[in-house]
């Protein structure tokens, strides 16, 4: 009904009749009526509409200015990175691509990516599996002495995976060694544990460690431990202190006061309040973050390997230096397989930890893995 009335008013106004109904709503002072429809809208609403319009316009000008500024800056950055006048060699690139992806012909006609070249290099360089170590474990009939040798004299759990195992081990050692330090630094860096100016001793140390990338830390440790996985693993451990510690500090910002107060009223000592009142609240989160950092550390292990520290990263550079692009691609595929496996495992475990459902034990998680993989592959 009311809308009908309104429309009726509009029509009467449109025909030039006197606005009788809205006369008291529209003061005489607002004579600047631009169209017929606006005249029956109360001033308050029109003012607000004008306000909004102006704000929008101002905002649009702001966005345009920002876009212009970004474009200008980007051009300068292009110049600084020599992309304005690149020394591009498309032919060479295409040549290398055909080596990256070697093509073979089935029955001399059907082109097909030649996986055999990749696989033969993977086997030749033991990228994913070391048959010498693996042979101890997988033989028929099984030999107890060899199995003992595999686990306790050859220490083959990582080495069975060849170069990928070395990369994985660098990430693993880095995480394991870095974790306790990250825990100490992260906890002491929290303002709730260490009073304000002093916690910055720990936060500052962590910031300093983070400011220098792991690859540079490896360079720093090379004189100490020589060019090899040892220096790389140490560097990754160092890097872990900075990154994981920072995540711990952030996590500790968000805990609740309740359990801390409860622990205070039991008469607990300061370290006990920290452990029971604070750390117990973030235990799951800390484990999840550590798994996440482990994922990242395996990736870092690839990059520091490029320096010559061993593992898959080292194979990538050496093959690149030899211009063996097919072999390089084979290594990249191995890296892909390694990283994806680690991520699958870690993310699976983390979602288990986060989701507070009926816990699957670690054992179930590992033994059930092939079945779950098969199930999801069949879907």
């Amino acid at each position: 009904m009311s809308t009908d009335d309104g429309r009726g008013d509009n029509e009467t106004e449109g025909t030039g009749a006197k606005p009788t109904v809205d006369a008291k709503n529209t003061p005489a002072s607002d004579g600047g009526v631009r169209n017929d429809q606006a005249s029956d809208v109360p001033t308050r609403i029109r003012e607000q509409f004008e306000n909004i319009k102006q704000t929008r316009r101002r905002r649009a000008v702001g966005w345009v200015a920002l876009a212009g500024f970004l474009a200008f800056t980007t051009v300068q950055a292009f110049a600084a990175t020599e992309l304005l006048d690149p020394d591009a060699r498309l032919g060479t690139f295409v040549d290398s691509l055909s080596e990256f992806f070697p093509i073979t012909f089935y029955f001399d006609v059907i082109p097909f990516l030649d996986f055999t070249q990749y696989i033969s290099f993977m086997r030749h360089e033991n990228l994913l599996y070391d048959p010498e170590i693996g042979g101890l474990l997988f033989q028929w009939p099984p030999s107890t002495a060899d199995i003992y040798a595999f686990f306790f004299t050859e220490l083959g759990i990582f080495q069975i995976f060849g170069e990928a195992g070395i990369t994985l081990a660098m990430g693993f050692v880095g995480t394991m060694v870095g974790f306790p330090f990250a825990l100490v630094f992260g906890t002491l860096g929290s303002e709730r544990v260490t009073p304000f100016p002093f916690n910055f001793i720990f936060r500052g140390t962590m910031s300093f460690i983070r400011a220098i990338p792991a690859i540079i830390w490896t360079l720093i440790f090379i004189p100490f431990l020589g060019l090899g996985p040892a220096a790389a693993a140490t560097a990754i451990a160092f890097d872990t202190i900075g990154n994981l510690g920072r995540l711990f500090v952030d996590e500790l910002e968000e805990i609740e006061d309740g359990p801390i107060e409860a622990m205070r009223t039991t008469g607990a000592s300061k370290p006990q309040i920290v452990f029971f009142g604070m750390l117990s609240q973030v235990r799951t989160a800390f484990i999840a973050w550590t798994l996440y950092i482990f994922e990242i550390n395996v990736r870092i292990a690839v990059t520091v390997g490029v320096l010559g520290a061993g593992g898959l990263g080292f194979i990538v550079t050496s093959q690149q230096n030899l211009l063996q692009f097919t072999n390089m691609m084979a290594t990249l595929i191995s890296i892909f397989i390694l990283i994806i496996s680690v991520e699958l495992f870690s993310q699976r475990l983390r979602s288990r930890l986060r989701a507070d459902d009926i816990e699957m034990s670690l054992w179930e998680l590992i033994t059930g893995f092939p079945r779950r993989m098969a199930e999801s592959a069949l879907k």
Partner: protein
Amino acid sequence: MSYIEVDGVTKRYGDVVALDDVSFEVPAGEFVIVLGVSGSGKSTLLRTMSGLLQPTEGRIVIDGEPMTSPRPEVAMIFQQHNIIGDMSAYSNALSGGIHRTGFLSSVLQLQDTSEKHRALEALDTVGLLEESEQKARRMSGGQQQRVGIARALVQRPDVLLADEPVASLDPGSAQSVMGCLRTASEERDLTTFCSLHQVNIARKFGHRFIGLRDGRKVFDGYREDLTIDVIDDLYGDIDTEGMFATDGNRSKETNEEAAAT
């Protein structure tokens, strides 16, 4: 035994007066219930008595010693349980006695057997012996609160302070939690202070009652003195005045929370 003396305690948060010159004395072994509407200062009173807060004026003396910081002899039970969700009921109960243990042995749970028996005894008192290995987070609200009581008992306190222990529970759980509290304090001869806003539960379980209103003590007496007039005075005008007092009360509460964090 413990003797509590609250002497002219005033607590201010900026302009807001949460407690206004509250004084009373409690002999050992009484079961005292603090009554009042939300924002009347019950929480502040209990938190001040526990040593978590310091009064602006006045002092609180328990067993001859002023409460300047939390002490093991004074245990506290919280409305939100404040137990550790990631630990089992047993580990939570055990954590009540950590003031008697060093850091490493409390972390690794290397307390001596008598201490561990004490934790299980306390869980038995609150009726959770069977569930002692359950994770606290997976327990119901009433069970969690009883774990909180068990933890307070393991502390071996002389004084038990309970800040609205049943406020977030359904009536059945509230009865059983209050029952636990009452049994525990009788068995162990504790002086108990419990704040409540449900009058029916209060009448059922309390010996002595202290009524607070707008931070002032307006009633102090035993069961026979708690007449319907007194309750009317504490709560009766809530229908009318409540509508005007809501805002003030609410801001007071948020201030309390802000000061607590």
